[in-house]
């Protein structure tokens, strides 16, 4: 037998421990591989969606004004030299659509996209999951997203009625089902694509042509751009494929990075498991190593023996992890596709991701194996063979290498991270990971005092078994500490996600509340003259005040450039009286007075930060091509009305919007109910009016819930990843407890001989595991909260203006989860302990 065979035999002799450890590494590698692949799938999907949306067009000319392009402009665009083909697209953000009236009538709010079927064939390729494409001869045919149709039980041939259409306009019917590609991927699938000529004639006010995609002859892009500047009289913006990718990718910014970080965390937990297992092996086999050393085995040979075990665990774990990773990636992608939380494609073939996951898995496992291996090589034969020898279990000796391991894991992540990083703050994210891992190490140090306190209720509940279970935690503080730490990392991730999610939700609720005075609003499909439609809104039953909001685009003039901004004209008195808008800077009274006096604006914080604007600064705003008009910044608000730009709308008075920009219509009306009207009654009245106007009713509650739901869909995925880290931690508990039980076999036999029943032995081991879980859960609450604080206040402060919102119920649930998971993990070792034959353990040998 070669010496190396002892390494394999060392693993084979403890098959359960080896399997659990390899599984821990495999799960870590799997999460890394899966998150990288899912990230790649998301990136690919954005790129593909942008390409599909632009088709063979190189340029998208987008109308600046909400009224869109006139037919004359479209004709001009078609005739520009160098333009081979042009496809005009009309778009209406939301329109209420119903199925045939009757008891089964369904009402949807859909994005309307109008295209010219003949032009589309030259520019874009449509992937259909069923039915046929639009036919020039049948202008009432529409395409809907196949997934959306399935969810809403809409089939080919079903009628769809656009609310607000003119009386003589016929119903539409579904002719085809779009796959989740191209237009089909927009609006989370809630859309209809139909003939633009139909949309142009269906309503009193035609749906505006929002953009025209131009297929340009090769090498003529610059000429075409020059022609656009020279020929177009209406304001426009030119976008390229890169712009489209940027816009689509905004929603998924940070996903890939966050997913990768979770993979790193899972792998770090796996590394804890490996380090612990090999340290246990070393403790068990020290005497055997002493014998080998006494028989002439060199330190280098012993080092090689342990490293071989590390390599074996790494390779088994990494290979298993890749297989698991592909499965996990498929599940993640399927989840994201079904929840529509993210634009995501199919499972990508991404060898680099698999390679990176394998390399990370092997490196981290070997790093974890290295120090036990070095310690084994340093074992002195005399010391190892001394009869009174006790295994070295001091904390000080093992902490430095653990710290080194953590640093190595973070460093590896740092090197690999930019591959998939989104737009989140790298230092903040890494700080969060460092807190997770550092916190786990701190748990190792503080385990004893923590277990002494946390274990009291368990000792009281379980009696002698709880007392002994608590005492058992003192036996090998480092081993137990690492086990608790590994569990705490996974649970802390759940806590951090919960707090971040809850804070984001609170921010969303605060945002929605602050921009909707009274909590109710109606968004019109088509803007209408304020004074014409005002009586309709003021006539709603129970309305105290109806305030219009005029939304229009403008440009902010800087020294030698101009930037697109969105402006909202509001009624300052309505917003002031209802306590809406949260002022970040400036006096509320002075700010609203400034709006009423004219020449003043309120700007959102994000815009102030982007442009370095402060109170009292002058901002020049203009219509495209028009003269700049100076406005003084009278206040900075935490949130403003949402716009297509990320910063939110600049707020001015309706009077300034009318007098300085000539805007006399409004697209949004906010409605304040009378004090004594029940919410349900008023809500119904608002919904009825919205239906009459084919408009969209909105309540702050619905908006906040919708934001919360989209958040939950994404957070839910990360929760699954965090729970995988908890599973790895649980494997660690099984491992540690099983080893502990074997080591304590004789002690358990003595307890049994003094009358401890098998059930009491089980209870003792489960109590020990429960205390581990309780300490892990409580530590996780602390660590996770710290991670959330870092995320909320440092990593992404712009996304959490509402500050920290603590989900107390979740925190309690995590502690209970810790206890539950650990107790479950303790069942197997407990059963093993209870079934050990007493007499075998009492034999007369040392």
């Amino acid at each position: 037998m070669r010496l190396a065979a002892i390494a394999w035999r060392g693993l084979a002799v403890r098959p359960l421990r080896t399997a659990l450890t390899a599984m821990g590494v495999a799960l870590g590698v799997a999460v890394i591989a899966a998150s990288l692949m899912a990230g790649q799938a998301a990136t690919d999907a954005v790129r593909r969606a942008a390409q599909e949306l632009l088709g063979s067009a190189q340029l998208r000319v987008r109308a600046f004004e909400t009224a869109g392009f006139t037919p004359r402009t479209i004709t001009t665009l078609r005739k520009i030299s160098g333009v081979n083909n042009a496809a005009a697209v009309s778009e209406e953000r939301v329109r209420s659509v119903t199925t045939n009236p009757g008891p089964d009538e369904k009402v949807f709010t859909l994005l309307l996209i109008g295209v010219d079927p003949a032009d589309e064939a030259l520019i874009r390729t449509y992937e259909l999951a069923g039915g046929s494409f639009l036919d020039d001869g049948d202008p009432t045919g529409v395409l809907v997203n196949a997934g959306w149709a399935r969810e809403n039980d809409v089939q080919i041939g079903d009628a769809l009625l656009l609310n607000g259409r003119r009386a003589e306009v016929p119903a539409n019917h579904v002719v085809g089902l779009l796959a989740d590609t191209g237009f089909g991927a927009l609006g989370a699938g809630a859309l209809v694509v139909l003939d633009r000529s139909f949309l142009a004639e269906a309503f009193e006010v035609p749906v505006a042509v929002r953009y025209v995609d131009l297929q340009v002859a090769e090498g003529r892009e610059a000429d075409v751009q020059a022609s656009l500047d020279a020929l177009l009289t209406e304001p426009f913006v030119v976008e390229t494929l890169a712009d489209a990718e940027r816009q689509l990718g905004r929603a998924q910014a940070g996903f890939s990075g966050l997913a990768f970080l979770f993979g790193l965390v899972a792998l770090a937990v796996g590394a804890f498991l490996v380090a612990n297992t090999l340290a246990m092996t070393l403790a068990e086999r020290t005497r055997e190593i002493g014998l080998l050393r006494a028989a002439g085995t060199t330190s280098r040979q012993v080092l090689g023996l342990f490293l071989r075990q590390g390599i074996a665990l790494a390779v088994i774990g990494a290979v298993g992890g890749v297989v698991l990773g592909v499965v996990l990636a498929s599940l993640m992608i399927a989840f994201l596709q079904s929840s529509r939380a993210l634009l995501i494609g199919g499972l990508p073939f991404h060898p680099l991701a698999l390679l990176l996951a394998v390399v990370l898995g092997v490196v981290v496992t070997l790093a974890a194996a290295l120090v036990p291996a070095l310690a084994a090589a340093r074992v002195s034969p005399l010391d190892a063979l001394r009869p009174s020898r006790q295994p070295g279990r001091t904390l000080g000796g093992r902490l430095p290498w653990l710290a080194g391991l953590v640093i190595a894991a973070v460093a590896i992540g740092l090197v690999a991270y930019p591959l998939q990083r989104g737009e989140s703050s790298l230092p903040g994210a890494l700080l969060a990971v460092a807190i997770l891992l550092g916190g786990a190490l701190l748990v190792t140090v503080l385990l004893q005092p923590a277990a002494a306190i946390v274990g009291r209720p368990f000792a009281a509940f379980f009696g002698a078994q709880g007392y002994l279970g608590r005492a058992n935690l003192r036996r090998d503080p480092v081993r137990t500490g690492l086990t608790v730490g590994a569990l705490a990392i996974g649970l802390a991730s759940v806590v951090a996600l919960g707090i971040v999610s809850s804070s984001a939700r609170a921010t969303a609720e605060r945002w929605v509340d602050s921009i909707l005075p009274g909590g109710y609003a109606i968004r019109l499909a088509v803007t209408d003259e304020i004074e014409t439609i005002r009586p309709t809104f003021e006539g709603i039953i129970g309305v105290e005040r109806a305030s219009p909001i005029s939304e229009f685009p403008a440009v902010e003039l800087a020294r030698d450039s101009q930037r697109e901004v969105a402006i909202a004209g509001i009624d300052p008195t309505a917003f002031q009286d209802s306590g809406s808008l949260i002022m970040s800077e400036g006096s509320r009274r002075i700010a609203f007075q400034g709006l009423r006096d004219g020449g003043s604006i309120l700007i959102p914080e994000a815009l102030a930060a982007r442009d370095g604007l402060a109170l009292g600064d002058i901002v020049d705003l203009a219509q495209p091509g028009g003269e700049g008009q100076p406005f003084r910044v009278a206040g900075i608000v935490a949130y403003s009305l949402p716009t297509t730009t990320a910063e939110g709308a600049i707020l001015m008075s309706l009077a300034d919007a009318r007098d300085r920009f000539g805007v006399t219509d409004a697209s949004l009306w906010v409605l304040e109910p009378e004090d004594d009207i029940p919410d349900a009654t008023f809500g119904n009245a608002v919904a009825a009016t919205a239906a009459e106007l084919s408009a969209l009713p909105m309540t702050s509650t619905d908006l906040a819930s919708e934001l919360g739901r989209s958040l939950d869909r994404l957070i839910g995925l990360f929760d699954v990843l965090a729970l995988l880290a908890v599973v790895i931690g649980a494997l660690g508990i099984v491992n540690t407890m099983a080893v502990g039980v074997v080591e304590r076999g004789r002690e358990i036999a003595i307890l049994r001989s003094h009358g401890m029943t098998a059930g009491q032995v089980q209870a003792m081991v489960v109590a020990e595991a429960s205390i581990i879980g309780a300490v892990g859960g409580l530590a996780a609450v602390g660590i996770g909260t710290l991670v959330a604080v870092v995320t909320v206040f440092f990593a992404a402060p712009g996304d959490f203006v509402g500050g920290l919102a603590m989900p107390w119920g979740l925190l309690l649930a995590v502690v209970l989860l810790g206890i539950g998971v650990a107790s479950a993990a303790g069942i197997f070792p407990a059963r093993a302990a209870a079934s050990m034959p007493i007499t075998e353990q009492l034999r007369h040998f040392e």
Partner: protein
Amino acid sequence: MPVILEARDLVKRYPLRSGSVEALRGVSLSVAQGEFVAIMGTSGSGKSTMLHLLGGLDRPTSGEVVIDGVNISRLDDERATITRRQKTGFVFQFFNLIPLLNVAENVALPFLIAGDSLADHRDRIDELLDLVGLSGKAGHRPDQLSAGEQQRVALARALAPSPAILLADEPTGNLDYTTGSEILHLLWDSCERLGQTIVLVTHDAGAAAYADRVLVVRDGEILDSIDLGRRADHEARPLILRLAALGL
């Protein structure tokens, strides 16, 4: 004196890959209340197996063990364990103590296992520590005690619930002569003064000489029963002569 422990035709077979090995071959014995009985034999003779069966730590393949009127061989594991807790006390050769518990807690272990608290039995624990001469060391950890002191703690623990029988398996096997003698004196003293029934397993004639009666075991059977009577001098010579006569 009434019989406190009775074994009837005990057989213990251990299965092997091919066939089985018989460790005990129909052993019967009885121990009277307050009697000090030693079981002697060479390594592999079956003496420890016999002690494990007598104490209810293991089940016989056939035969019965009756402790203080309870047929322990017919009880399920749970009830057998509780009977063991109430009626027996054990002292082993090695690793007798729970290292995480201090001396007082180790002595109180049978009470703790029964669901009582240490405070409920403080007087009894003090009394036992006094008996084994460790009154000042109640708060010490096992690793702060010598081997002899650890074995005294184990003896105090075995006596704690006032068991019907105390079973000791080579309790002096890991101790030097002087310390071992101290432990044997304590055992004899508890028998003499407290009327404690004791079954001692040993291969040492010097230790067996403390007993009232010695059962000699060979190849899983009781070869002979040597009645020594209660003697304060513990003289081993008469026993050694009888053993020599048996060819041991």
